[in-house]
């Protein structure tokens, strides 16, 4: 009776995962979809604890209760308290926790379940994938929060990484084939190798590609969970894990496409590294700059202003002040829109989340395809902390590393104002011809302080 009831719990959980994910694909139903998934998860967890068949000592129940209690409080507080700009690293951290959980399950089960091939394979697979996902996510977390802010490149890291990957997988396969190698010592070696590989895999990858890596590691953890489901014949773990594995892989590919990069060039390539200097910086030219007071007048008497926010806006925490400027301009009868490039910010969609946080109306955020035709009828484009996503080299210069990436065609507007801290190149490390365009004026300075004075000037008009 209990067992079949438990199966029903898992069935419900599996269905809610599918329905929840589907609903999360639409802005109207997304929030409900997430809650439905959470509901199914709760059913699966409670069912596993309370519908268990067989005698279990009280102390174990107490331990489970305690760890769930601590985890719930810590997870809840972390998720509620963290600033919206820190979202990507938090997702990476939680992902690492899931990977570690899968690896720990394998560590515990190895002594019991290493005798049969049918259980040994999922135990080892869970161990390898879970560990890679854990150590990789931790490195991604450290990179995103700035602790590890350089792309560390050991000499010929591609070869070293590949060799370590082959040794790791080879050892795993050997442990399955050759019973003499199927011992605790080798299992711990496998654990150490997997953790090492996770570190080496992420360490050389530059900041701009981090979203892709997190998404990839996300699908790894899904895979690790699926192997756990295979081990126990647990359908909820299987559906949850496989869904995230395949959906995560697709999401990774979509992200790569938006940046016009292939997955292999993210993993093996050299974006953001010193070697990737392309473009035609020599043709340079002179840049104009503009004073805040002049810009305020220019914007105040415009019909239409489009704001192009980039990660620089988020770093400077200027998303609130930009909303204030938008409100002032609207009260003067200026039409204001935001043009969001698919990869603006640190993750696709990240910029939308940040602007939504400062209560910018969702309807004002326009995606690239719909806003591009509007630039020609725009008086002022204000580019704040964005660079590569407005670089015309992506369309005109085949030698540029970002050639082919779809960009926001801001150069069609009458006036282009670019706010940057300095003339330094963006993530991709390439020069931007837009800055030398005769219609472009530079507004140098920290986004938050410059925009604050712009808001004050506007109010005074």
């Amino acid at each position, binding site marked *: 009776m209990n067992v079949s009831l438990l199966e029903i719990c898992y069935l419900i959980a599996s269905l809610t*995962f599918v329905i*929840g*994910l589907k609903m*999360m*694909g639409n*802005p109207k139903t997304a*929030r409900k979809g*997430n809650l439905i998934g*959470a509901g199914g*998860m709760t059913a699966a*967890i409670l069912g*596993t604890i309370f519908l*268990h068949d067989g005698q*279990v000592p009280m*102390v*174990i129940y107490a*331990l*489970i209760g305690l*760890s*769930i209690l601590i*985890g*719930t409080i*810590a*997870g*809840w507080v*972390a*998720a509620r308290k963290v600033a919206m700009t820190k*979202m990507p690293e938090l*997702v990476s951290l939680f*992902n690492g926790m899931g990977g*570690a*959980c*899968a690896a*720990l*399950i394998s560590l515990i089960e190895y002594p019991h379940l290493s005798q049969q091939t049918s259980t040994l394979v999922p135990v080892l697979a869970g161990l390898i994938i879970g560990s890679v996902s854990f150590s990789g996510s931790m490195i991604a977390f450290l990179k995103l929060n700035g602790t590890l802010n350089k792309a560390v490149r050991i000499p010929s890291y591609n070869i070293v990484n590949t060799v370590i990957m082959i040794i790791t997988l080879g050892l795993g396969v050997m442990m399955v084939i050759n019973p003499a190698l199927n011992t605790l010592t080798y299992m711990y070696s496998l654990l150490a190798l997997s953790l090492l590989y996770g570190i080496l895999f992420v360490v050389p990858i530059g900041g701009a590609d981090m979203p892709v890596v*997190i*998404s990839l590691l*996300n699908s790894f953890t*899904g895979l690790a*969970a699926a192997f*756990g489901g295979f081990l126990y014949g647990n*359908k909820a*773990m*299987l559906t*949850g894990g*496989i*869904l*995230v594995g*395949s*959906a995560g892989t*697709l*999401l990774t590919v979509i992200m790569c496409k938006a940046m016009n990069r292939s997955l292999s060039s993210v993993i093996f390539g050299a974006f953001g590294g010193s070697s990737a200097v392309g473009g035609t910086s020599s043709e340079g030219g002179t840049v104009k700059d503009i004073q805040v007071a002049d810009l305020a007048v220019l914007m105040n008497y415009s019909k239409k202003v489009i704001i192009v926010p980039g990660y620089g806006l988020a770093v400077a925490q200027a998303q609130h002040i930009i909303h204030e400027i938008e409100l002032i301009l609207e009260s003067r009868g200026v039409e204001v829109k935001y043009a*969001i490039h*698919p990869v603006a910010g640190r*993750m696709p*969609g990240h910029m939308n989340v940040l602007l*939504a946080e400062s209560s910018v109306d*969702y*309807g004002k955020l326009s*995606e690239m395809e719909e806003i591009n035709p509007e630039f020609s009828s725009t008086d002022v484009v204000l580019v704040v902390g964005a660079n590569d996503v407005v670089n015309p080299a992506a369309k005109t210069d085949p030698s540029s590393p970002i050639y082919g990436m779809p960009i926001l065609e801001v150069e069609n507007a009458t006036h282009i104002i670019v706010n940057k801290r300095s003339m330094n190149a963006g993530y991709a490390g390439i020069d931007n011809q837009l800055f030398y365009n005769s219609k472009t004026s530079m507004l140098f300075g920290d986004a938050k302080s410059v925009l604050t004075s712009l808001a004050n000037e506007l109010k005074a008009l």
Partner: protein
Amino acid sequence: METIFTFIQQNIDMIYFIVLSIFVGVEVIGHVPTVLHTPLMSGANAIHGVVIVGAIHVMLNLKADDYIMLTLGFLAVLLGTLNVVGGFVVTDRMLEMFKKK
């Protein structure tokens, strides 16, 4: 060759299940607007927290005096909970902002 055929025959239901789940995963993500990529990634992140079910299962089958394993199991459940709770709460927080005013 023989062993592969036996394996397929014995696990045919599982193979169907896995292949279909992969397609469902791909289809479900199909036409998602860019705006929702970050929340979706975060939501998927929460869902793979289902691995906690395995961790609880492991704990329930341990002996009460196997202290080392109990510690590892405790840690596994704790980390799994962090993944699940943190993942769903953070996703909800992101999506809460997309409310139309």
